[in-house]
């Protein structure tokens, strides 16, 4: 029998505010000494009163809007009670009945790129059930009979995003999570870094006979610390469960953990005990009314997102899907690319310019940034400015310099920040396009290499390259290659006896 997988994802994203959700402790806990970002509020001391961090609410609204969610005009906070030492209050302040964001969707391009790039992608729409704001918990380290608790993370704003069970493959889950990560990074509201726990994902998954509309037995997978781990764990589970079902077996309702070293899922908890969270409205926090003005002001802060940019680059500039995906991977790069295009002096030939800029960014710019250990999102802090790349491209296009010289100039702009035109002038790098000068050099080379000239005349095309090289060498690489090619052909033909 053919089976179909049904996947829903629950993702927690730490919002990158400076201070915590309900107190003024620093929320930037990464690398901090344990229990140094704490106060009576985030330690749950009796009598301490929480106050809502407005920026965290705005960040959550931005994500909600980017996910095409409706934004609640009225919402309040609730206490989710449970006993666990990572929560010093004995409850987590969360949202239950009225999530801040609800009923949204996201479109993602699904590609199986495990065996190389695929230009074609399937565009899928995944519905978002809700996204609500809550507080993160402290961190536990288990050692023997004790657990060590650090409350630096306690109270860091956390956004929980829940999809409808719309996901149908491991690749789709991967595409959804990458898109979500990219969105929060574009919005500047979170690093989305899974290795650092800034984005945590718990898929739930079940199999059912293809075409059936009931759900099978659901398992939950935890302990996934990278996008790849999410994809691998889901792929592994689909295979494992299909095997069991085909053999006539039954799936147990369990919570699984992903064992990265053994590349398999292992049972963490046998049976999900029915939780009794006893939600009730948080009496210490007033409800929130979200006005039209506030909502519109937040909406205005949302930039054009990656997928929309990819579509536009392909439509307006005729770029390939590959180029569009590469250029939009980081918002800073996409912005840089667009700024370079804005400075083009030939707006009528934008597609050609866009292709040239795309090539330069993906080859020379990325190469130099890699060599100098500059992360791609720091592109605005390097010395080359977008206008300078455009200037360089125009110098090549006008025939002032050739491509090889342009690469050297670009490297120099990267190091010094000087304008390409100034570098070309100061160093006398302008291409030699003066015909009498070039003809003299060509004739010298031809008379110095009679044997090679004869070989070219005999049809040995490879040797022509050698003679080209001699001319370039004599002009220190500055000769206009197209002109040299033409003059050299003429000179060789003329020497035919």
């Amino acid at each position: 029998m053919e089976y179909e997988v049904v996947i829903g994802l629950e993702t927690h994203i730490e919002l990158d505010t400076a201070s915590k959700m309900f107190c003024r402790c620093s929320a930037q806990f990464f690398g901090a000494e344990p229990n140094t970002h704490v106060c009576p509020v985030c330690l749950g001391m009796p009598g301490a009163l929480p106050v809502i961090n407005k920026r965290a609410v705005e960040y959550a609204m931005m994500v909600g809007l980017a996910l095409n969610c409706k934004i609640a005009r009225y919402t309040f906070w609730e206490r989710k009670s449970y006993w666990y030492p990572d929560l010093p209050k004995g409850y987590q302040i969360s949202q239950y009945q009225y999530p801040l964001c609800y009923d949204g969707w996201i479109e993602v391009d699904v590609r199986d790129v495990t065996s190389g790039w695929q230009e074609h992608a399937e565009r899928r729409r995944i519905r978002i059930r809700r996204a609500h704001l809550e507080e993160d918990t402290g961190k536990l380290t288990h050692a023997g009979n004790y657990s060590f608790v650090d409350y630096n993370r306690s109270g860091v704003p956390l956004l929980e995003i829940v999809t409808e069970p719309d996901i149908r493959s491991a690749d789709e889950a991967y595409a959804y999570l990458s898109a979500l990560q990219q969105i929060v990074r574009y919005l500047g509201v979170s690093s989305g870094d899974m290795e650092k726990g800034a984005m945590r994902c718990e898929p739930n998954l079940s199999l059912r006979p293809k075409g059936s509309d009931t759900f099978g037995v659901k398992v939950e997978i935890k302990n996934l610390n990278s996008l790849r781990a999410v994809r691998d764990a889901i792929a592994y589970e689909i295979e494992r469960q299909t095997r069991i079902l085909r053999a006539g077996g039954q799936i147990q309702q369990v919570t699984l953990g992903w064992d990265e070293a053994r590349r398999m899922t292992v049972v963490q908890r046998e049976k999900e005990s029915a939780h009794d969270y006893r939600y009730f409205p948080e009496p210490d926090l007033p409800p929130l009314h979200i006005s039209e003005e506030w909502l519109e002001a937040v909406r205005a802060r949302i930039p054009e997102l990656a997928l929309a940019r990819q579509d536009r680059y392909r439509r307006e500039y005729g770029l390939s899907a590959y180029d569009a995906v590469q250029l939009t991977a980081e918002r800073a790069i996409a912005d840089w690319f667009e700024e370079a295009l804005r400075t083009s002096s030939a707006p009528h030939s934008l597609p050609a310019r866009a292709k040239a800029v795309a090539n330069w960014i993906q080859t020379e710019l990325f190469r130099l940034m890699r060599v100098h250990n500059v992360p791609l999102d720091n592109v605005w802090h390097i010395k080359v400015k977008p206008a300078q790349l455009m200037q360089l491209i125009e110098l090549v296009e006008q025939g002032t310099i050739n491509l090889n010289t342009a690469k050297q100039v670009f490297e120099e702009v990267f190091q010094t920040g000087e304008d390409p035109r100034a570098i070309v002038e100061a160093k006398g790098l302008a291409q030699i396009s003066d015909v009498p000068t070039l003809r003299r050099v060509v004739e010298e080379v031809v008379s110095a290499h009679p044997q090679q000239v004869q070989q070219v005349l005999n049809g040995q095309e490879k040797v022509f390259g050698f003679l080209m090289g001699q001319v370039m060498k004599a002009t220190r690489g500055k000769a206009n290659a197209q002109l040299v090619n033409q003059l050299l052909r003429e000179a060789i033909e003329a020497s035919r006896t």
Partner: protein
Amino acid sequence: MLTPEEIEHIARLARLALTPEERARFAQQLSVVLDHAAALMEIDVEGIPPTATVLPVHSVMRADDTPMPGLTREEALRNAPQTDGEFFIVPATFGDEA
């Protein structure tokens, strides 16, 4: 009247260990409290939005996201049941038990 199982469950949620006598006594007392509150269930609330607060305030927020120092670690750990000077130390716990 609450069943013994319900009383046991509620006691467990509150981390209370009850003797059989206490269980019986609290089942009685808690049932009276719940019955009293149940009178509210008879009110017709059709069309009335849920009330999250009775205070006339809403949307009170802190607009300034600048962090401020809280407690020093020494202060924070002063009430810890057990500590090594860096962490709160508690009996080993695994899984999020409700």
